[in-house]
């Protein structure tokens, strides 16, 4: 090793240099192409990991935390909060994610999904959250596979052990012959079919599915393009999918 500073590279990467050493090493880094090249190579190491798709709500959670913390820290007046969808019913702490749906659409959906529970909620003497029935409302944006143009959203409503599921998709490629878009819920890679649909003239499609007794704790929702209706396991390719929060 030509320069004594080069020896500190691993301490630098390990974050164990003190402030002064850190400054000195950074000055060295600016001068030493060998150390800098080694540092650059470490930027590729994450690709040794298998890709893991973050769940749909992570970005909003992290950026909210980042900007909140920044605002608390700075003495400037806080910037107006970004607009967010408001959950129309009581939700457990992590059940709700932001979505592209407007509050109006979400509320309309809930009315149709919840039926009696929603009526009870409206008529209750104390309409505030504490007395609301145990309902968890979760929406996720479905991620399109690489070769698929469409988009989709799923709403999951957990209510007293039952699960209501609504999937909407847009910009779908038309089906031909017996082909259908099939929705699946998966746990640990094992799927159950939860409804199928074919796209409308406008290339949109939707399906509603209700599971009376939902005990599985699903971790993934997926849409495949199946060659025919009624398959119990997917034969076609996954076109849309997302990780979902298993219900505790």
């Amino acid at each position: 090793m030509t320069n004594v500073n080069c020896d500190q590279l691993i301490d630098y990467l390990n974050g164990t240099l003190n402030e002064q050493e850190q400054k000195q090493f950074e000055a060295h880094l600016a001068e030493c192409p060998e150390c800098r090249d080694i540092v650059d190579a470490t930027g590729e190491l994450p690709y040794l990991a298998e890709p893991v798709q973050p769940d749909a709500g992570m970005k909003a959670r992290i950026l909210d935390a980042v900007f909140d913390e920044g605002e608390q820290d700075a003495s400037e007046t806080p910037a107006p909060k970004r607009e967010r969808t408001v959950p129309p019913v009581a939700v457990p702490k992590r059940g709700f994610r932001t979505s592209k749906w407007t509050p109006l659409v979400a509320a309309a959906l809930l009315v149709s999904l919840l039926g009696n529970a929603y009526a009870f909620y409206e008529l209750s003497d104390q309409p505030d959250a504490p007395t609301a029935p145990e309902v968890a409302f979760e929406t996720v944006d479905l991620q399109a596979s690489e070769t698929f143009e469409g988009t989709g959203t799923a709403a999951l409503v957990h209510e007293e052990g039952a699960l209501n599921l609504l999937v909407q998709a847009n910009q779908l490629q038309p089906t031909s012959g017996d082909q259908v878009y099939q929705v699946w819920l998966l746990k640990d890679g094992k799927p159950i079919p939860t409804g199928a649909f074919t796209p409308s003239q406008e290339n949109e499609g939707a399906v509603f599915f209700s599971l009376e007794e939902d005990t599985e704790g699903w971790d993934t929702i997926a849409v495949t393009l199946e060659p025919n209706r009624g398959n119990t396991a997917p034969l076609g390719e996954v076109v849309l999918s997302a990780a979902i929060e298993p219900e505790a």
Partner: protein
Amino acid sequence: MEKISDALLYERVKGKDKEALEELYDRYEKMLYSYLCKMTGDRDLAEEALQEVFVKVWRGIGSYDESKGKFVAWLVTMSRNSAVDLIRKQKKPSVPLDEIAEVESTDSSVEETAEWQEKSDQIHQAVRHLSEEQQKMVQLFYFKGYTHETIAEKCGIPLGTVKSRIRLALKKLKTSLQAVQEGGVLDDKREL
């Protein structure tokens, strides 16, 4: 439209531009999250570490400029160190040494994009040109959440030796990676 460089976006972040931060986040979310999931074996911990990294970026802690190398490498170093700290705080037993390839990715629905595939092929190829000992050093330091001190302790090797072995491993990785990226195929005669 020309893609704005990371360094330029970072300059805008220093001026408290939220959109610039969001752009950087979008560029590296999946890469860093995948890495952190592998390292911690825990999605929640990975998310916490990732959040810490972007809080630091936003608050200008450990400020970056191009003299420190590539921006992404700087992010990876911060990510690693955040995860090391979190793992230590949680006293979470780190993944056993012999399960190096098997840290499960919890999501079966992910499909690798072409870009990921290419990057992944390159780094995997490059790693194959390291000796077993060198591969182990990279795994322990970057994927097991071990500090160089812990590696020295666990392997019964002096700290100085551990540091120079990690350095040599990374140096060879860099050379192999460059060869792979430039030539597509690595010529064994160019081995170090």
